[in-house]
């Protein structure tokens, strides 16, 4: 089934333009991989990028750049070191991410684990977050944009059900308490521009341990 919750068009344009940071690109790429509609939107944006590339003021290349490249044309190709992806019932995520989950996940609270993927620049981070069946997150808001994609399972947030492949963008205007559905655990791929801001005592109590 195709995802029903999508990134904003402006987000897809940023993604196509290459102006998103690495962590955010990771999350959006996983959604786009699962979403035919967003692939179409990205493709249009890429075509626009191509047209506008032709309009850019050229910056002269260094002296001898063409000769240097011509000399390298016959270099043998290095084999691609990336192993083939293995992802049974998960949304497409690159193997290094799953590897990070395997090696770095740590239980942060009963039923909750966090596996850091990237840290920085600044307060940015991306991580996998697992929350057990039926559990609710402590009430919280955000600073900057949090981009969150469901990889497995589902959660409910302010009347909207987010299932595998669905993506949400939450910022400081959001005050919420997402709840995982009863059917099973929910695993999300998250990129946040800053740690979340707890709005109740439970969250304030747990945040130092959870580290997100």
């Amino acid at each position, binding site marked *: 089934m195709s995802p029903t919750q999508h990134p904003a068009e402006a987000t897809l344009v940023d993604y196509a333009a290459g102006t998103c940071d690495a962590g955010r690109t990771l999350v959006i790429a996983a959604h786009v*991989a699962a979403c035919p509609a967003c692939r179409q939107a990205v493709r249009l944006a890429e075509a626009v990028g191509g*047209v506008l590339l032709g309009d*850019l003021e050229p*910056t002269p290349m260094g002296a001898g750049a063409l000769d240097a490249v011509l000399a390298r044309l016959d270099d043998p190709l290095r084999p691609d070191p990336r192993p083939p992806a293995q992802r049974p019932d998960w949304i497409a995520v690159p193997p290094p991410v799953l590897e990070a989950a395997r090696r770095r996940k740590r239980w942060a609270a009963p039923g909750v684990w966090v596996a850091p993927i990237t840290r920085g620049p600044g307060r940015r981070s991306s991580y996998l977050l697992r929350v057990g069946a039926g559990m609710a997150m402590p009430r919280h808001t955000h600073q900057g944009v949090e981009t969150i994609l469901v990889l497995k399972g589902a959660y409910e947030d302010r009347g909207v059900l987010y299932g595998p492949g669905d993506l949400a963008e939450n910022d400081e205007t959001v005050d919420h308490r997402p709840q995982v559905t009863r059917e099973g655990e929910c695993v999300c791929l998250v990129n946040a521009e800053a740690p979340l801001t707890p709005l109740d005592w439970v969250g304030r109590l747990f945040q130092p341990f959870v580290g997100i």
Partner: protein
Amino acid sequence: MNAIACDIDAWNAPHRPRLLRGVRPQPRAKVNPRKDIAPASGVRHAELIAAVSERADRDAFAELFEHFAPRVKSYMLRLGAAPEAAEELAQEALLTVWRKAASFDPSRAAASTWIFTIARNLHIDALRRTRPPPAEDPADTPAGPATPDALVAAGQDEARLRQAIATLSHEQAEVIRLSFYADQPHAEIAVALGLPLGTVKSRLRLAMGRLRTLLGDQA
């Protein structure tokens, strides 16, 4: 004469790229304001890539290099790369064009789109070592030899998209241009334009929607 014959063929080509399918020629649309880019440049570039793919044609490659490398360098600079890195990435991008020319599929993307995505992916690779492989990476599948019709159609599509962009309002065109090549997030674009962030984002959404309508890409 040859070029005109090719144009007519393009309209009859059975294999039209999905992006622009159903678009009618717009004889009264605004003329391309750029004098230095021939309308047929997209066809030319597609043919050059095919020549690289089929004959390992170094002259064709050199022509692609002269056109695209300095522009890819500009793009990299605007993405925040240092001058040496931008130079290196531009060289690397064109080297990738050479190596992956066989996977260029004009029924999927115009030449400029294909080279743009190669450059962008190199930039993302440079940001981190583990770029997620996109679900459909056009750069990795051999496409088979392109028919002349398909090459022309790809160039025509690019020209039509260019025309569509030219029919956008100044405000919409500006916000698209800034989103791609201003090296600043939307929040800063908003400040630069003296607009609320939400307005910038909705203007961008409207602009992309307008392009979609103009191109008949409603699917």
